[in-house]
């Protein structure tokens, strides 16, 4: 865990004091809303449909138990007793009042958290693989590099008014759990000739014009990384289109100019600025790396775990779906599902946050992670502690065994909260999860990612869902379009639209037809939904989605 320096503490305190004064000046009328809006956005404060919303960064998704406890305290003291974890590893409070926000920011600063650059046309919260530092398949922990980028990008004087927002994701493993190809910059730490460096991918993004990122450099050495990033963002800052908000992201800049042209410009800029990087960043990186040293892993008997696994079917089902391979012998990575059937994806009550913090303290080397899939991870738990941990999770209604299954749905807040949304997302997620729980089919269906966005901006990552759902406003009525075959992993693929959308009443039955159709189409239970779709293409899936059209085609052919 990164430890704040005196400089960090002072910077944050000053920044919070500035914002407190800005809020006071807004309330006493010295600032107009036009003047105040950019200032509040810089500090993560939005005005949504029913209330203000404060978006708090959880850098690279890492928290300790004291921080999680403080998030719980803030939820109870100034909100309605819960928080919403997002696809960008942030937490959002949906009901703060303007006067309270400076106190909330001070409470966050007490545990070294903040809301800086969670909005605005700046470099946003740097996200990372939620299994970072624990995954068995990792080349290196991506968090030191992510922290270095956070320090470089926070209050970077040249990059406070970019053409549009800018998102960076980092992974240290070949398996991509951080959707790096759908980010403005995606970094993958790789090894070449015994040296660690990064593959640099640019121009990915979802939203109105979804694009898979392109490889700009296949290997950049550690000491060249920051100058390279600085050169990329500088080129974008000048070249990015400020004339049209919808064409202002770097994905459009890369698409319109071509990756070769961008590479030539970045090379030229890099040559110009390289000498300004004298190696100080590498000294800082060494200090940061020391902060992220692995915990002292213990050794213990696995008897309790093996006994529970053999004798308790509920524990076994949970262990089979919610555990992942840890790099240390005897350890497991625990995913805590925030997707209880019928609950709001990503929401945790203050009590649940405290339970998770407590479990991290007792069993998890004091570490928690927030995943972009809106779940909470305990990255380091010894298997001997799992039976006790599972019992505590059950009591807190946090033991849903559905990670990676059909009810582990990503959903943006949608029109229940968001001022930009064109339709609701949450109720659709709730209904799908409830329906498949009733059918008792989800373990039979197997790995299947459903992702729901309530507008074209795609916060719910629908383009990379195996099944994507996009909520739109069609002539004053909610309408839901389906995309199929998307994939957010290292094989990143954008889903393809199936055809006409469905009404709010018809979307859940449509998803049910689709999934039951898959069960008939698959070769055997080991062939996943995505594999079946890739083998057969869209036609047989469209036939089950639109039975009337399929019937008409048959009649016309006869």
């Amino acid at each position, binding site marked *: 865990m990164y430890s704040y320096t005196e400089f960090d503490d002072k910077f944050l305190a000053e920044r919070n004091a500035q914002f407190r004064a800005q809020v006071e000046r*807004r*309330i006493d*009328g010295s600032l*107009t*809303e036009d003047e105040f809006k950019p200032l509040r956005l810089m500090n993560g404060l939005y*005005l*949504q*449909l*029913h*209330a*203000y919303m404060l978006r708090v960064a959880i850098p690279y998704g890492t928290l300790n138990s004291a921080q999680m406890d403080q998030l719980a305290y803030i939820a109870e003291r100034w909100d*309605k007793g819960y928080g919403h974890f997002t696809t960008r590893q942030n937490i959002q409070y*949906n*009901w*703060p*009042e*303007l*006067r309270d926000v400076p106190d909330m920011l001070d409470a966050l600063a007490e545990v070294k958290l903040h809301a800086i650059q969670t909005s605005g046309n700046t470099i946003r919260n740097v996200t990372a693989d939620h299994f970072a530092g624990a995954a068995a398949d990792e080349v290196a922990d991506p968090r030191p590099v992510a922290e270095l980028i956070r320090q470089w990008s926070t209050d970077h004087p040249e990059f406070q008014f970019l053409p549009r927002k800018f998102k960076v994701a980092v992974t240290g493993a070949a398996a991509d759990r951080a959707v790096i190809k759908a980010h403005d910059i995606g970094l993958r730490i790789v090894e070449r000739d015994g040296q660690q460096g990064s593959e640099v991918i640019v121009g990915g993004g979802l939203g109105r014009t979804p694009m898979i990122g392109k490889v700009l450099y296949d290997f950049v050495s550690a000491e060249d990384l920051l100058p390279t990033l600085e050169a990329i963002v500088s080129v974008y800052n000048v070249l990015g289109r400020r004339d049209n908000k919808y064409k202002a992201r770097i994905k459009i800049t890369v698409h319109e100019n071509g990756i070769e042209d961008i590479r030539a410009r970045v090379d030229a800029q890099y040559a110009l600025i390289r000498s300004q990087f004298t190696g100080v960043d590498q000294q800082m990186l060494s200090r940061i790396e020391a902060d992220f040293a692995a915990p002292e892993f213990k050794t213990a008997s696995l008897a309790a775990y093996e006994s529970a696994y053999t004798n308790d079917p509920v524990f076994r089902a949970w262990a089979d779906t919610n555990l992942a391979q840890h790099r240390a012998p005897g350890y497991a990575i625990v995913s805590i599902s925030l997707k209880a059937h019928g609950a*709001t994806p990503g929401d945790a009550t203050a009590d649940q946050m405290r339970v998770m913090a407590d479990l991290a303290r007792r069993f998890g080397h004091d570490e928690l992670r927030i995943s972009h899939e809106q779940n909470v991870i305990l990255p380091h738990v010894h298997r001997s502690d799992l039976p006790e941990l599972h019992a505590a999770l059950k009591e807190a209604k946090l033991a849903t065994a559905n990670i990676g299954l059909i009810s582990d749905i990503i959903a943006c807040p949608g*029109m*229940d*909260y968001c001022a930009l949304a064109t339709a*609701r997302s*949450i*109720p659709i997620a*709730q209904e799908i999860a409830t329906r498949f729980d009733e059918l008792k089919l989800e373990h039979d269906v197997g790995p299947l990612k459903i992702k729901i966005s309530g507008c074209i901006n795609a916060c719910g990552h629908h383009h990379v869902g195996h099944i994507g759902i996009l909520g739109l*406003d069609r002539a*004053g*009525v*909610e309408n839901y379009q389906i995309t199929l075959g998307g994939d957010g992993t290292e094989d990143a693929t954008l889903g393809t639209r199936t055809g006409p959308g469905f009404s709010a009443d018809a979307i859940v039955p449509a998803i049910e037809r689709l999934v039951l159709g898959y069960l008939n189409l698959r070769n055997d239970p080991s062939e996943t939904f995505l594999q079946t779709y890739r083998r057969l293409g869209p036609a047989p899936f469209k036939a089950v989605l639109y039975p009337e059209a399929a019937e008409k085609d048959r009649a016309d052919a006869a």
Partner: protein
Amino acid sequence: MPKPFTPKVITANALLEGDVVYQTATGWTRHLAEAEVLTDEADADLRLIDALTQQDLVVGVYLADVAPDAGGPRPTHFREEFRAKGPSNYAHGKQETV
């Protein structure tokens, strides 16, 4: 041909609480049923300009379509329905106090 003018209310969010508010003949209310319905386009434009000057009270002022009813104006679009009531996943917002 320009579209005929449909009845509207002036709505915004309260500066301090962020809560949805509607304009009445004399001020602001938190309940759509108490809002003043504007049926004349020129009048609505003037009232909107006036509301936009009340920055010490409200943020994000605009005109929203409504259907006048015996019990007061009702929303005609689902977005305004959610604004008038609150989110659908929890009984929070206005529905909490009803």
